[in-house]
């Protein structure tokens, strides 16, 4: 294993370690709250996995400085007046719309290319091909962030339901240790 590989991957490994710690708590512990804690750690680690993969060296958060954004706003307002819809349209595969959308899609692709050209025009330094880069600023891929926002919300939703179930179980059985509960059920 090269040191290159080690430095390229070590934080994935730590994330894996964190995930497995969480996973271990979930499957090894019989206390229900502890299980939920384990689940939480597991999920947070998965979030870290996604966020790690979105990061690009030398990148910055995908929030465009307002100055730049304003610039485009102006550009777009001009654009909006020219064509009311300024984004890739619904190129729906349904036969009925295909012809309409096709023409439109071409038009938009053209626009997008023009725009991309414009954007990279005043880029300084070596523009690495394909990396999200606007006006010399490299942006980290925002998609993992978006996915993880959803995943976090799903996680808290699950936790809430799990905890409310625990409350019910502890009221009904008087304990939240799975072993004891199973014993009680068996005795019944």
């Amino acid at each position, binding site marked *: 294993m090269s040191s290159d590989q080690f430095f390229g991957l070590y934080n994935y490994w730590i994330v894996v370690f964190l995930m497995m710690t969480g996973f271990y708590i979930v499957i090894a512990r019989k206390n229900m709250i502890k299980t939920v804690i384990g689940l939480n750690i597991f999920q947070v680690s998965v979030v870290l996995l996604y966020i790690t993969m979105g990061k690009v060296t030398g990148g910055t958060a995908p*929030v465009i400085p307002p100055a730049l954004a304003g610039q485009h706003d102006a550009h777009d307002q001009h654009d909006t007046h020219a064509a009311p819809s300024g984004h890739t*349209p*619904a190129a729906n595969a349904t036969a009925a719309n295909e012809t309409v959308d096709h023409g439109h899609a071409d038009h938009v692709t053209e626009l997008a290319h023009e725009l991309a050209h414009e954007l990279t025009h005043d880029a300084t330094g070596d523009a690495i091909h394909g990396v999200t880069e606007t006006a010399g600023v490299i942006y980290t891929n925002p998609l993992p962030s978006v996915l993880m*926002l959803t995943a976090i919300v799903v996680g808290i939703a699950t936790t809430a339901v799990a905890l*409310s179930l625990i409350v019910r179980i502890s009221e009904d059985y008087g304990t939240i240790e799975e072993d004891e509960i199973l014993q009680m059920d068996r005795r019944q």
Partner: protein
Amino acid sequence: MNSFPIIRVVSKLIIPYILLFGLYVQFHGDFGPGGGFQAGVILASALILYGLVFGLPAVQEVAPPRVIEKLIALGVLIYAGTGIATTLIGRTHDGGQVPANFLDYEALNHDVLHGFLPHGQHLGIFLVEFGVGITVTAVMTMIFYCFAGRSRLFNEKASA
């Protein structure tokens, strides 16, 4: 907890700012980190703090559980309704009307108060974030109510 006057005073002072911050996060999501979900959490936390300090009945007077329950539903309806609205409106294209897909905010383009009211994508994003905010606030509050409703601590306090 309500036996500590300092906490009561401090929280009374803090809560408006939390609410304000929540609203800021809600409506400023376009510009910086934040959005409906985070705003909802913050707004709910203000209510929860209020509940913790002044007791469950007090906060339920401000935000009755029935209303909160309806708000949970309302937020989702606003979100999904925006989607349905876009399909119903359709988008203008080359002067003609073509179908717009579900959640295609381009359908929300309009010329009313141009430059003042958001339109198109901005309006869409505003609406759905608003929906998310309402639901999250309501759900978080409701979860708090439910847990607190089960707690003997709170129930005794209510009777006392």
